[in-house]
């Protein structure tokens, strides 16, 4: 059997760095100086990724980091010699020059510092440091210390778990670059969704939950960071805001898609009800509905499924209740109108006016009665009885004018100005009695007496209109 057959068994890790560096002195200086055009053998070490940044997953750098980290965790000092001996022997068998070039790359990006005579050296341009790396004997004596400037393993794992949950995708690599990329696509998409929601919600009057705005702000903050390491740390730091914020953005966006028109209708229904709120019976379904609506409004909780369903359910009851109220207001107005029209022939006769006047005088009331059922807005329907009463009052005034027109004019005395028309005062039952309910004849007689007295007093100076 050939020796090569046993090579993978003796050096199972050799294949990771199968490179020999010919001119290590130049290679170390080049790497420390950030030279772009490296020798082919140095390039073969795969120390840098395509963008030219140090690739922490390069087998040489990864091996170095693991070795130093494990020794540091055991509180052991690591000399250059320890590192060279480790990687020169089985199971590695790596070129000792390549190992020094790897250390130079770590020094360049600040992940390893070199202690020479206990003095830390981190500046790649430092002549003493350069000499210590280039001279293999001197390198064996220096101490190497890992300065972990990367994102911690737990933080990376937790951030990936968060992103998997947020995006619903599992195929995200657990590297800062991959997490950065995944967040970019996801975050831009969510922000666009949030903007659409805002464009709709503001004019529609849908209050946004606090979580929505905090989540949007967190997304903007995370996306503003272009450095993958910083972005990953920021994602982790704002995990709570992102989690609740994205949930809220999705919830409201879905609400808008599914219930947008229904919410607008609900909002206008509430506006209509608020116009007649003072006329509503206490403890009714409409009051309950308005209460639930206002609570949802105050807590910005319309998009929550339970809340929305609850409001929708009460709304159905409120719609029924308002229809009953509308019908009663229409009926009340209709009764006022019909009574007045029924009394009109008698009123004309009583005042010795021609019967033919009835048609013209009744016209506004008849027209009003014809459109009673076409009014649907609660505020307008609620006002129908008072409108009807006003029309009846106007009819009374017309009657009065007609009577006056026909009355003989008093002879005008010379030089004496005409007497001014007397003012009219209205008298209501409430003017003479706080309790307007009459329970027996005695009470009625008492009320009559008070009313009679009041009217007579007023008649001394005014004309009186009973309301």
């Amino acid at each position, binding site marked *: 059997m050939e020796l090569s057959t046993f090579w*993978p*068994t003796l050096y*199972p*890790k050799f294949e*990771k760095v199968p490179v020999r560096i010919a001119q290590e002195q130049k290679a170390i200086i080049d790497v420390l100086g950030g030279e772009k055009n490296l020798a082919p053998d140095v390039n073969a070490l795969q120390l840098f990724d395509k963008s030219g940044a140090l690739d*922490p*997953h*390069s*087998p040489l750098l*990864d091996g170095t*980091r*693991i*070795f130093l*980290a*494990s020794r540091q*965790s*055991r509180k052991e000092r690591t000399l250059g010699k320890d590192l060279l001996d480790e990687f020169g022997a*089985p*199971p590695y068998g790596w070129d000792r020059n390549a190992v020094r070039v790897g250390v130079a790359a770590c020094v360049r990006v600040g992940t390893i510092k070199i202690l020479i005579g206990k003095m830390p050296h981190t500046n790649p341009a430092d002549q003493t440091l350069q000499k210590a790396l280039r001279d293999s004997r001197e390198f064996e004596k220096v101490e190497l210390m890992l300065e972990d400037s990367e994102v911690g*393993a*737990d933080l*990376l*794992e937790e951030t990936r778990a968060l992103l998997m949950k947020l995006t619903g995708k*599992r*195929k995200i*690599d*657990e*590297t800062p*670059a*991959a997490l950065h990329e995944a967040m970019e696509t996801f975050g831009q998409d969510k922000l666009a969704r949030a903007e659409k929601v805002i464009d709709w919600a503001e004019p529609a009057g849908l209050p946004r939950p606090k979580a929505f705005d905090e989540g949007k702000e967190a997304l903007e903050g995370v996306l503003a960071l272009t450095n993958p390491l910083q972005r990953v740390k920021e994602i982790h730091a704002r995990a709570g805001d992102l989690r609740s914020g994205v949930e809220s953005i999705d919830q409201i966006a879905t609400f808008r898609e599914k219930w947008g028109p229904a919410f607008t209708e609900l909002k206008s229904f509430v506006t209509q009800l608020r116009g007649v709120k003072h006329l509503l019976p206490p403890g009714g379904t409409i009051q309950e509905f308005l209460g639930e609506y206002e609570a949802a409004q105050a807590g910005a909780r319309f998009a929550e499924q339970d809340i929305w369903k609850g409001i929708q359910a009460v709304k159905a009851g409120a719609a029924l209740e308002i229809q009953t109220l509308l019908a009663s207001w229409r009926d009340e107005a209709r009764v006022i109108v019909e009574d007045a029209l029924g009394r009109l022939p008698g009123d004309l006769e009583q005042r010795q006016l021609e019967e033919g006047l009835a048609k013209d005088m009744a016209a506004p009331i008849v027209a009003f009665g014809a459109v009673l059922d076409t009014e649907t807005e609660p505020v307008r329907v609620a006002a129908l009885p008072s409108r009807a009463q006003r029309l009846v009052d106007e009819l009374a005034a017309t009657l009065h004018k007609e009577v006056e027109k026909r009355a003989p004019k008093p002879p005008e005395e010379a030089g004496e100005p005409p007497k001014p028309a007397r003012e009219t005062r209205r008298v209501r039952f409430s003017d003479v009695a706080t309790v307007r309910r009459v329970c027996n004849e005695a009470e009625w007689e008492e009320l009559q007496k008070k009313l009679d007295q009041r009217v007579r007093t007023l008649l001394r100076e005014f004309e009186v209109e009973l309301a």
Partner: protein
Amino acid sequence: MDLKRTLRAITLELRRELEGKHDAQNNWQPGDLERRLAAVGVRRDRSPVPVNELSLSADDREARRVVDAFIQSRAEAGQDREAAIADFVRAAAYSWANRLLALRCMEARNLIDEVILQKNAYGGRSLQHQRLARKKPERCLGEDDGLFAVLLDEFGVRAKELPLLFDPKAVEVTLRPSVAALKRSIALLSGTLAAKGQEVATDEVFTAPDALGWTYQYWNTEEKDRVFQKVRTNKGTKIEGAEIVPATCIYTEPYMVKFLVQNSLVPRCIN
């Protein structure tokens, strides 16, 4: 890509790598696990080397104890030593391959974090291996780079749901393959190494609904061919012992299952 051909090639290479194979002259060529058995002092053709004459690691010492006990129990049941060793190697190879394949199928279906699939993004490791290297670098200092540690950890976790498949203390996995063989097996499953004459494996190979069923069929393909060849060429040869399984283990395809169910259980249910 012909997914089944790729799966077949990988399965057969895994078995050859771990258990061994018969060459063109029908001579047995031991696989990695039998060589590992030899390394712990147990060979088919000679007496075992006493443990105190060997320099064994703690894991290998435990493997040797388990193998000795296995051979002893078989001897008590009347089985000869060579057959007992062959049985042990067969069971160990099957168990290692089965576990690696099952993990690969689970991760391809996004059921677990990747423990087999190696990526350049993780420096040629799997996700879980990379995590171990970052969190506990001291466990990755050995020649296996922490590969056994991450696999055995995962066996322990999976055993909570699938104890029969992943028991980390099962006799068959006490003997570990060599690092080189394990890496090659993982490379085949991971798609970083192509099986002979095939393209590298992708997730699709392992997400097919019948992937595991076909794997078990392919595992026995060569053995079945050999058994039937023996029956054809040697008159009066009976199929017996360990040969019964490969000769009779045939994957039942979904259409067969459907036919059988519709013509047996369904009429009974209707009646």
